[in-house]
């Protein structure tokens, strides 16, 4: 039961990263890819009907984590207090910048919200990457299963890390590049002409950087938390994930060269999913590893809610998620294809 809920939460988080990932990525490259007013409107229209729904995956995953792993939720959310609050403020800024920019014709008003949109999107990507790296590296859990991390200490991993150290910053940079490429590919998929070409060209430029940092991140992880390779040693089948990472990166490269936006975008989805799966496979069965000697890892078994509660949960979760997938199917199908000049919303 515990393993099942571990993967349920992991899959929901992966859905969040892939879906909200592309609109965060679009935001990250927005100022550079979309140059004219018309292009900016098209770019916003490409994500307009879906960004809010994508963000719901974060809430749904958070709620499911709260319900299935209350101890982990309590420990991680309070321990990551400062970065989470910053994430909340960035989410607020990003949400209002997408929606409010078009409420006025004033050029300064629009320039201001364009800047806020890119700033908040890029920084969110950095924070999410750093957050995941924090989990992989481990946190200094106390005997009461709680911890509190300052934003930075000495920029080293070890017994007294901060939210930001060399390893988590690497994770943040990886995330902003990978999501920037992911978003560019989505934009190439949804737009035409010059905008499409510019999106392709940004994806092409970011690809080598993504490749390098991905390759760096593997030994870096082994250095930051040596026992993260334990599961790979005992279950070599897990090497399928790094293999998929490499394969998907190659797919993206080839598809970009052939200007096949759909294949490139799906390659990018696969890349993100296998990176996350690789991280999850390295952690399992820990959900939040402990560094230092005071506390124990928060494992699935230690943080799981009671079996009875989880059995009840499985029933409504299954029904609910099938409904959610159906809604997403309807929306993405209705808004399929390229964004046209006179589409509804974010008008002129």
């Amino acid at each position, binding site marked *: 039961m515990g393993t099942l809920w571990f993967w349920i939460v992991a899959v929901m988080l992966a859905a969040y990263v892939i879906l909200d990932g592309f609109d965060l990525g679009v935001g990250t490259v927005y100022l550079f890819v979309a140059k004219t007013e018309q292009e900016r409107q098209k770019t916003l229209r490409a994500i307009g009907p879906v960004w809010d729904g994508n963000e719901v995956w974060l809430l749904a995953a958070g709620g499911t984590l*709260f319900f299935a792993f209350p101890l982990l939720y309590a420990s991680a959310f*309070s321990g990551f*207090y400062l970065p989470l609050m910053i994430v909340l403020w960035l989410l607020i800024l990003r*949400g209002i910048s997408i929606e409010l920019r078009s409420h006025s014709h004033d050029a300064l008003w629009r320039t201001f919200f364009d800047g806020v949109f890119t700033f908040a999107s890029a920084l969110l990507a950095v924070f999410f990457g750093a957050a995941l790296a924090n989990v992989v590296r481990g946190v200094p859990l106390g005997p009461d299963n709680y911890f509190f991390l300052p934003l930075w200490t000495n920029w080293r991993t070890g017994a007294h890390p901060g939210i930001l150290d060399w390893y988590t910053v690497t994770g943040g940079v990886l995330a902003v590049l990978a999501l920037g490429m992911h978003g560019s590919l989505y934009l190439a998929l949804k737009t035409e002409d010059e905008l499409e070409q510019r999106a392709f060209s940004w994806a092409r430029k970011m690809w080598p950087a993504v490749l390098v940092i991905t390759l760096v991140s593997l030994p870096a992880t082994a250095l930051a938390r040596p026992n993260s390779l334990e599961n790979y040693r005992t279950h070599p089948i897990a090497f399928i994930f790094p293999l998929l990472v490499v394969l998907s990166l190659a797919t993206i490269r080839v598809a970009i060269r052939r200007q096949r936006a759909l294949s490139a975008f799906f390659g990018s989805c696969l890349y993100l999913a296998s990176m996350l799966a690789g991280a999850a496979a390295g952690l399992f069965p820990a959900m939040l590893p402990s560094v230092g000697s005071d506390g124990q890892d928060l494992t699935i078994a230690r943080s799981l809610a009671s079996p009875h509660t989880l059995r009840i949960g499985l029933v409504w979760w299954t029904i609910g998620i099938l409904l959610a997938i159906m809604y997403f199917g309807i929306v993405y199908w209705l808004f399929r294809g390229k964004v046209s000049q006179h589409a509804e919303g974010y008008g002129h």
Partner: protein
Amino acid sequence: MDALTLHRIHFAFTITYHYLFPQLTMGLALLIVVLKTLALRTGNAHYDLSARFWARIFAVNFLLGVVTGIPMEFQFGTNWSEFSRRSGGVIGMPLAMEGIFSFFLESAFLGLFLFGQKRLSPKAHWASAFLVFCGSWISGFFIIVANAWMQHPVAYHQLPNGVFEVSSFWPLMLNPWAWLEYAHNMSGAVITGAFVMSSVGALYVLQRREGEYGRTFLKIGVIAGVLSCVAQIFPTGDLHGKYLAKHQPAAIAGMEGLFHSEKGAPLVVMGQPDFEHQKIDNPLAVNKVLSFLIYGTTVAEVQGLDKTPRDQWPTTLPLLFYSYHIMAGLGTYFVALMGLAGLLLWRGKLYESRWILWLILMSFPLPYIANTAGWMCAEIGRQPWIVYGLIRTSAGYSTHIGAGTSLFTLLGFLGMYSVLSILFVVLVYHIIHEGPQTPPLEHSGQSLTAV
């Protein structure tokens, strides 16, 4: 200030600010469905344009509801980790269900409703409005189930390590407290929607602009207002009060300012509670009415605060007393105002009676105050418990998050929400000023709110 107080202010401020938006969107969602239904049945385009106008106001409120709502879900973990650790197995369930059953529905169909009028048939567009309404009301339900469990815990076991688990699903969902609270809360949301709609209508009629739009908003707003204002007091408020008296006697004694148990207890309409001397200063009281309201007879004994041990009294009693009196006083005024407006509407004199249009216009902030005060009653009345009778508030917060850290983020939210407030006022003013007859999208500067 100590950390506990700061964590409480942190949550109180962010939730109060957040709930300014959902109370309108939940109420307005219903009224938009009414407008879309009228459009579908009469084929009259002015109802469709009215729905489009209100959808624009809805969208701005919805956006602010979303961005201020995400911090709420995070704060259970960040600021109230002990409470989350112990009760997550119970209240985590309705909160997760809210995300899965309501937010997906709401966000998907709001996108369709706002962006898809041209892609959808009129019936499908009506359906998307209806599903947005369903999503927002389901969302409210699950939040209330979580809150009702904190007010009146049912269907749980306590494990040896102090953690609570759900013992059975349906009794948790069918908690009578949840249904009473839900009915009272949703009718409160409809009151906000009705007041806002009728006051915009009153504004247009007073300004002699927008023609039949102003009259339509007034008519629908006043009819919804009459129904919801009456329902707010009877049966929902009445039943809720009686249930409260039965299960949280200290809360109702604090709300009414009843220090000593009394047969034929009076209803204090106004006064200032003096807790040092345990009496009400300058009371304006009506004899025996409180006993009658709670028990249906003027001789019944009502439990005063003296029946509750001092360490279980609500911690901020004067605020509880005033919150309740503000809520009840405003609720009474709402019935009078909407009743009068309804009568004038029925007699066909409403649109010419400028004095009452002025009253309606100036009254639009009041439902926000009343809804906020009502929630303050519920939350302060439950103190000193975070889960009534099970976990004290002082045992629920994140002890390892210091007062300085909490104040830092509280100030951050104060700053952020000040900016949001300014933007909100400017945008809504702009939409109301433009009016419902703005030309179609291609020729005008619209946003997500334009369909």
